[in-house]
């Protein structure tokens, strides 16, 4: 029901002329046979010019301006200041400055009726909507967005109505810049969700993939390294899964013990690309790069290491 893809530039600068957003678009479009109901990306390593960018979507049954007014108030009440709001229909891309606890800010925004948060990030943002990758691009223009790394997802939904909320990537409330895309199905989802809810975590959907985002974020917040968090998930999560996590400075992938979901990797000195199917990666990489297929019960991580010579780009 899903296809996943991700790309990372190891030195943070692409020698190619193509933006990360464009590359994700091509990869996801080539896997549209795995799902065309919705598509989503997270593009990381951006320079926003504000403390955070929050991607909010207004649920269908509410009036947008009314909800956004509520969000403004919520932000102001906590001492934050909104610098810009970009309008994409029911979506709002809000750049704001804020120095307080991000959990409080998230809760405050979520308490506005009709507001859903797709992501909060210092350097990354989630863009997801119904339709395939090209339709997503037409509406949100993400193929122009560049960064150091990014991940994406195509989804085949079981619900009939237009539903963006259950699309991936999932942002790990309330931690900035941590997002997850997942292919597979967790069988101990309900049990894990209840445990997290008892500890005060909020879930916006009934989608099992969301719990992976929360799980990883929880580990990272307790100072586990990404690789360790992924390793531990291999035992703590039950079911079939291949998932990719993106943080502000890198990404990682985990593959379940049954090797049930497909995943291939192409890697050069400059960059690494991962996807559910090789057909996606061949859009970006030349034929001579060798394909790697991770084994079952395996975890891999990659980091972006920014050398000083990289210019700082303003958005």
């Amino acid at each position, binding site marked *: 029901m899903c296809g996943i893809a991700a790309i990372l530039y190891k030195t943070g600068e692409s020698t190619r002329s193509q933006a990360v957003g464009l590359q994700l678009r091509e990869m996801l479009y080539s896997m549209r046979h795995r799902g065309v109901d919705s598509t989503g990306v997270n593009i990381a390593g951006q320079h926003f010019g504000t403390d955070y960018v929050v991607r909010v979507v207004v649920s269908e049954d509410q009036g947008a301006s009314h909800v956004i007014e509520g969000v403004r108030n919520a932000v102001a009440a906590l001492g934050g200041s909104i610098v810009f709001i970009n309008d994409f229909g029911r979506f709002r891309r809000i750049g704001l400055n804020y120095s307080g606890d991000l959990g409080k800010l998230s809760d405050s925004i979520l308490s506005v009726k009709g507001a859903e948060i797709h992501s909060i990030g210092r350097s990354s943002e989630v863009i997801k909507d119904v339709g395939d990758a090209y339709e997503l691009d037409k509406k949100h223009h993400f193929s122009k967005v560049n960064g150091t790394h990014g991940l994406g997802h195509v989804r085949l939904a079981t619900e009939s109505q237009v539903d963006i909320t259950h699309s991936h990537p999932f942002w790990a409330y309330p931690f900035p810049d941590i997002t997850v895309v997942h292919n597979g199905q967790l069988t101990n989802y309900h049990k894990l969700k209840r445990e997290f809810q008892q500890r005060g975590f909020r879930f916006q959907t009934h989608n099992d993939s969301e719990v992976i985002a929360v799980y990883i974020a929880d580990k990272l917040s307790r100072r586990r390294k990404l690789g360790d968090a992924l390793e531990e998930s291999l035992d703590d999560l039950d079911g079939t899964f291949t998932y990719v996590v993106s943080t502000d400075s890198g990404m990682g992938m985990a593959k379940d013990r*049954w*090797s049930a979901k*497909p995943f291939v990797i192409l890697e050069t000195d400059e960059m690494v690309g991962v996807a559910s*199917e*090789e*057909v996606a990666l*061949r859009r970006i990489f030349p034929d001579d790069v060798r*394909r790697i*297929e991770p084994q079952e019960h395996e975890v891999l991580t990659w980091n972006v290491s920014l050398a000083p010579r990289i210019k700082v780009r303003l958005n």
Partner: protein
Amino acid sequence: MTERLAGNVPKALSAPVSQGYSIDARKLTTRLLNASIKSGVSKGRYITILNPDARHNLAVGIVKRCSLSFAGSVGYYCCAFCDGISATIEGNSGWGLGDNLMSGSIVIREDAGASVGASMRGGQILVWGNAGARAGISMKGGTLVIAGNSGFLTGFMMQRGRIIVMGGVGDAAGDSMYEGIVYVGGEIGSLGVDAKTESATRSEEVELRAFLKALKFRDDILPRRFRRIVSAKRLYQYDSLEPLERERLVI
């Protein structure tokens, strides 16, 4: 792939053929591409498929003797449900390469994805690279040769046939096998349910080496010895039966 092995992969996977033509896959939908291949096959031509781009379902359901060559990577189920084909693949494959092969030969230069040779009934598949998980799953006959390593659950629920892995196999090798043999030259990650290992017999070693040399494996990259993974046969029968189930008729 180890360097030694990489040096051994033949430059040309099959003998050159003077008559033949190529089809550029990039210009065609999968349906048209397969229709072109089938039509070419019925005229007895040698066909090269250019730019397969790791696409799915190429050359499936071909039941006539023919020679096909893929100049690149293929996706899922390449050459599935075929009988009598001779195919070479210059790149990687996705899942299910040679699924349900009845007879014929498939040679792939790089890595095969999961479930290579799934349920194959005869013929031969040779993977010069590595194989993913569940290689030879539910195999019913034929021979699957993997020059590199094979993944998790190699030979799962195998019924007949031979799998020959020059490298190592992953965990749960030979899980729930009925019959059939998995020969392993390298490390065995772990054995699956109801599987056991034995050393290959002398005559088996001789036969294997002769067979592999005929496939162009050089002496210096053949493993020193092979072990066999076979069914321990402890799960063949329910260990307790009700009275009416107990009378076994051997028919």
